[in-house]
């Protein structure tokens, strides 16, 4: 049996070629080309006589998870097998890659939505409001306490929207009320340092 002194990955399908773009590889990675079995029996066997240490993985049920079933091909013969197997440690492990994938996707999509909404509130909305309501009103209702306040004109819009009453304006009314609340919270926490030092 030949001993490998160092691991050579040159024939691995996952080695990166210079001309294979990173984007291409990321796309392949997203597909999950490798066949992921979520159950394994992992046996770690230390060096024995002239055999180097080795790690064996096999997709096998829990009752078959021992050295004799997993270590294949057996590097020693005959009576040495028992001695070799006594040193090996075998452990049964399982995981759910689907759960991991779904959770990460859910998390990243919520994070992405929040980031988009944040960009909209801090950058896009003031520009839109300025175009609709004129430059002067925005300056009047801006409380200047250091950083830019995204919800500065909430009072204005609240007063205006109280007169109309359809669904879209109800949503806008709720949104403006929420913005006022957040502004109050921001004042207590960041400016006056009253709550949450």
């Amino acid at each position, binding site marked *: 049996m030949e001993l*490998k002194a160092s*691991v050579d*990955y040159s024939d*691995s399908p*996952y*080695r*990166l070629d*210079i001309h294979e773009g*990173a984007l291409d*590889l*990321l796309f*392949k*990675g*997203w597909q*999950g080309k*490798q066949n*992921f*079995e979520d159950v*394994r029996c992992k046996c770690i*066997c*230390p060096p024995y006589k002239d055999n*180097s*240490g*080795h*790690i064996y*993985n096999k997709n096998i049920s829990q009752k078959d998870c021992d050295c004799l079933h997993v270590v294949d091909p057996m590097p020693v013969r005959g009576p040495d097998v028992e001695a070799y197997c006594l*040193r090996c*440690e075998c452990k049964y*492990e*399982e*995981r759910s*890659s689907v*759960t*991991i*994938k779904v*959770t*990460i996707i*859910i*998390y990243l999509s*919520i*994070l992405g939505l*929040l*980031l988009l909404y*944040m960009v909209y*509130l801090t950058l896009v909305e003031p520009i839109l409001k300025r175009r609709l309501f004129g430059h002067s009103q925005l300056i009047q209702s801006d409380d200047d306490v*250091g*950083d830019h306040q995204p919800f500065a004109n909430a009072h204005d819009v609240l007063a205006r929207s109280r007169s109309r009453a359809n669904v879209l304006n109800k949503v806008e009314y709720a949104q403006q009320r*929420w913005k006022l*609340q*957040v502004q109050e*919270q*921001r004042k*207590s*926490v*960041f400016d006056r*340092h*009253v*709550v*949450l*030092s």
Partner: protein
Amino acid sequence: MMDFLEEPIPGVGTYDDFNTIDWVREKSRDRDRHREITNKSKESTWALIHSVSDAFSGWLLMLLIGLLSGSLAGLIDISAHWMTDLKEGICTGGLWFNHEHCCWNSEHVTFEDRDKCPEWNSWSQLIISTDEGAFAYIVNYFMYVLWALLFAFLAVSLVKVFAPYACGSGIPEIKTILSGFIIRGYLGKWTLIIKTITLVLAVSSGLSLGKEGPLVHVACCCGNILCHCFNKYRKNEAKRREVLSAAAAAGVSVAFGAPIGGVLFSLEEVSYYFPLKTLWRSFFAALVAAFTLRSINPFGNSRLVLFYVEFHTPWHLFELVPFILLGIFGGLWGALFIRTNIAWCRKRKTTQLGKYPVVEVLVVTAITAILAFPNEYTRMSTSELISELFNDCGLLDSSKLCDYENRFNTSKGGELPDRPAGVGVYSAMWQLALTLILKIIITIFTFGMKIPSGLFIPSMAVGAIAGRLLGVGMEQLAYYHHDWAIFNSWCSQGADCITPGLYAMVGAAACLGGVTRMTVSLVVIMFELTGGLEYIVPLMAAAMTSKWVADALGREGIYDAHIRLNGYPFLEAKEEFAHKTLAMDVMKPRRNDPLLTVLTQDSMTVEDVESIISETTYSGFPVVVSRESQRLVGFVLRRDLIISIENARKKQDGVVSTSVIYFTEHSPPMPPYTPPTLKLRNILDLSPFTVTDLTPMEIVVDIFRKLGLRQCLVTHNGRLLGIITKKDVLKHIAQMANQDPDSILFN
């Protein structure tokens, strides 16, 4: 107390933001409601079903809280695990896998190099296609710092824009809320979403913080939000706080995989009133949460926490000495940390530092990332570090800490004798010492920043490092000097005598106890982490020693210190009031103040009352028979008065400014052609608590604590003399303890 024949006006009986609830009123309201349902249940089948469902609604609510907390904890664990490794590289075999899961099924993992597999590409491999060399190291360094800064920036921006209440640990504020305070929005849905999302970002950015405290906040938010589905809990603030206590237990349960420890933590640290019924329900919620998390299986192999301890080697009696030393270290570190952290937080509150929260977060992250990358023990996430430190070295462990020289011929079973340390262990010791210093210093500046930050994991890390260092030292001492009397009598040569992993665990418990001053809950949490009763005595020895040492150096734990720093009106339930003052020393009005503002029971007009309300800021007024007699009738709250008068002006005919207000059962005799009178008896509390002016203050403080009062009236010879509010009691306690009584802010 409340007249049920009249419809209650909406708004009466609710509370303003930043006010304390009236526990007595809420509890009696719940008893009235329950009595009404029980009486009605005899009338029809529908009413019977209604009463049964009302009884079961509590259990259903606990079930929902457990499910939601467990799922959110699973989401946080999996995402944090993935994003932490994102700083170092990416898995091309499946983008959503972190390092460990990426190499899970790989066939190219070797015995010597168990961490590397071709599917996992570090950033230098992706960018410059190689992992060796100085340039690759610099690229990795740069990407690490960049990702850390990006995560921290996203976290603090999201907190600032959407939910400023989501920052910090949350436990001091939850303690205050559970004692009766109201902070609107603190447990709302936006705070929940932002706290969950930014907690993952904060943990992944490599900062020295944990996620256990914020998980309690997340669980309490779940509890509060789910309360809105049930009428019984939505309308009653006292019942809601029972649910929040149970939710806090569920939060700790999923953080540590310790349901019993969670319940005890809620009982000892977080809750103010904890009736026995809540005990059973909290346990149910904690179990459901732990079970949900287990079925999500974030770490594989049905482990709930990353740092599970799996060894069961025995300990020896002489080892109690180093364990007590670890306890002393934990107490010293706890006292030092509390003092320095509070000083830094006070600086943040009062100076210019507090005006630049985003910049502060970015600077601390940059410093942490730049200092953390070179040392492998600071580069890995703190949970992984603790897991490695708790690990007992077996023959097949390949980490540097387990690089012992194996000078034996046979290995009997799994038991390894004490071995001399190899080169790897010595270099690991140096690196761990540097890690210890870095973590001690940087955590002081990290806890309290404007991102979700917890304290449990950094404290446990500090303790685990100290414990492991001491453990390895003891182990080598036992090996090289096995002929000393101590070791000779307890350790036989060739046997496994000292387990450094156990020292790490005891150290972690000691440091955590020193900072938070937890006692029973700490020992139970650690015991549930190890899964056995063997190590209870060392854990208790260390926990008790650390609490005594820390208490000798500083009076309060970190959460109580933060409550005092923020000036929340929290009446400490554990301390004795040891001074001999009387009620008349504390009551208002004081000697030179104007007389007590009272309302008479039937001789004031609407105009008089409105002017009193606008001129003063008191939250309530006593009602007396007449100004001459000053005999007490009851107590009425300001908010209820405002709402009732406004409602009466709008809805009742003829009520004008000269209408007389009466609190008696029947209207007083009025001359003809006067406007109709206004009856406000239904908002009057006919049973206010009174003490005489010579009552000792220790009894008064006890009454306030046990009943949850907001104010107490003081009488002399049956006549109303003055009033004591909770704020007055807090100021008095602070004055007696020689602190600044003006630091109590809220009314």
